[in-house]
């Protein structure tokens, strides 16, 4: 707790220093002589102004994209320092340097290196942080991050991503297990409790599946209430037991799932299947499961 408080204070101090510094320098410069109009170089102003704007835009991007935390704060202080340096450089263009005391030019050079050093430290820590986050997301993305492929409702990948990953694994000649889970009577949940409840249930199932898997597995939402789990380097027996386990786990959410399993021996088959064919095999497997369920209900 104390440490956190200290961090916050440090962060606030950093920002205060940066702002105070810029005000101080501006005031100093206000007393300096301005350059005569002919000596002002428009091109320099444009390039240095652009650098300043870029620095500020990075700052806003970081503020928008990242949750608060030590790494974010370091990045913000670093970018603030850098932007301040750019600002000083820009002001330089309007004033005569020699009209200011010697210490001033020295002071004015400080913000840029300090800012860039802090930024580098922040990026280094960001790298550490990202490693941890990646571990957390392993069963959801498997080292391949493309946010356009994320399903809007459940926040896990959709079927396009699993095709991509499947093709990759087929190329590597690995054995794979595929498990499809289809929630029984999901349409009823949507009808009776509304889409909101239905969406919550789907999200919960997605979370649950992601947490049950090994670190090399991947789960995605196939379509509607169907999920596909990809199990690389899995044996047929393992597939089946994993499928049973996932099915059991879903029962904990007060709903039942139908489950289809498909095991692909990559190196033995002469003709290679592609991702779409594998998924077609899996869906026809699912059809059989559903047909069997109807038959058992009738008899």
């Amino acid at each position, binding site marked *: 707790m104390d440490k956190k408080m200290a961090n916050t204070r440090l962060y606030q101090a950093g920002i205060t220093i940066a702002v105070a510094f810029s005000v101080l320098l501006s005031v100093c410069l206000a007393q300096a002589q301005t350059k005569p109009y002919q000596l002002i170089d428009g091109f320099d102003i444009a390039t240095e102004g652009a650098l300043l704007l870029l620095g500020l835009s990075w700052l806003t991007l970081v503020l928008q994209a990242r949750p608060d935390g030590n790494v974010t704060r370091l990045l913000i202080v670093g970018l603030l320092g850098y932007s301040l340096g750019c600002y000083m450089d820009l002001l330089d263009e309007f004033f005569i340097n020699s009209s200011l005391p010697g210490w001033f030019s020295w002071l004015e050079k400080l913000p840029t290196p300090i800012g860039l050093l802090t930024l580098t430290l922040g990026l280094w820590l960001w790298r550490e942080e990202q490693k941890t986050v990646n571990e957390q997301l392993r069963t959801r993305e498997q080292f391949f991050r493309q946010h356009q492929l994320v399903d809007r409702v459940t926040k896990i990948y959709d079927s396009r991503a699993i095709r991509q990953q499947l093709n990759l694994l087929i190329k590597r000649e690995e054995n794979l297990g595929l498990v499809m889970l289809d929630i029984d009577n999901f349409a009823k949940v949507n009808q009776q409790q509304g889409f909101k409840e239905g969406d919550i249930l789907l999200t919960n199932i997605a979370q649950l599946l992601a947490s049950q898997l090994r670190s090399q597995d991947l789960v995605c939402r196939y379509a509607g209430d169907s999920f596909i789990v990809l199990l690389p380097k899995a044996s047929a027996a393992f597939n089946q037991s994993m499928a049973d386990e996932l099915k059991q786990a879903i029962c904990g959410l007060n709903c039942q799932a139908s489950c289809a399993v498909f095991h692909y021996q990559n190196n033995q088959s002469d003709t290679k299947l592609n991702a779409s064919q594998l998924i*077609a095999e899996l*869906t026809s497997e699912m059809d059989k499961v559903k047909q069997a369920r109807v038959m058992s209900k009738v008899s």
Partner: protein
Amino acid sequence: MQRVAYAQDKCVDSSLLVASLISLFEYRQLDINQLLSGSGIFEQDLTKLNHKISPIQLSQLIDNALAIWPGDDLAFLLGQQWLPSQSGSLTNGLLCSGNLRQMQNFWQRFYWLTQPWLQGSHWHTDKQQHLIFQLDIGLFRQRQFYIELALSSLVSSYKRLANTPWQGAFYLPFAEPKHIDQYQKYLGKHLSFNQPLCVLSYDQALNDVPFTIADQHGFALAQRQAEQLQQQAQYTIGLPALIRNMLTQESKQQYTLPDIADLLSLSPATLKRRLKPFNISFQQLQDQANLHNAIYLLAVTGETNLQVAQQLKFADSNNFRRSFKRWTGLLPSQFRCWLS
């Protein structure tokens, strides 16, 4: 005489598709104002009983919805909950049907009351039943949406009523879409794309699977109510479907553009102008009707090219072959076994 609806006529009951669409968007917390913008529909309208909108308003709404909706499952989600979200005698009739045959006949008679964007017809061959879906007041550029909606609502209604999975094949008149997984999930794996007509085929045996909540009395009552409703309805068909019907009717009489315009008390130029908002021309309707007839004669009754050419009033079979190639890109002979 059919009472025909033009593009600006208020003929679509907004308590059906429009209300489902809006409630779905509310659940997903999407912007309702953006959804309704430019459509001339207001949220308070939907609380009114018997509020109706025009085909033009509907098309604007669907355009907005497709632009805003994140993902590509909108039509399928709407289709999933089509049956339970409807009310009235049409739904009662469907719910009380004894089997698919009864349900299908009932739907064919009264669907326009709730799904005026469609034109449905049916054929049957030895072992199979075929349902053909075309667009009535639905815009051609939104065809895929309406087809997805119609097919997924039919499949999910069947699942619900018969309590068994659907078995049947789908012929779809567009290229394989990117979201093929949604099709496989909601419709099944028997899909063929790039077909000249939208057809749903299933075994005759499926017609007789008993529905779980069948109720003959309820059905008879619903049928009487629906008949009454249809008699009172201000409109009973849209302009595109009316014209297509006239051109397809097992041609005892050959209608031309001036004939049809005359029957509607319009000038030919006005008739053409009235078709424009539907995103379709008279020539296109004529081609569609001819194609419909030709495929019926080829694939269902199994006639030769020459016979088909004669029946469709082509000068000779070469002419027919050439026209057929223009409509479908394929030769007539390739369709002889199309539906089997």
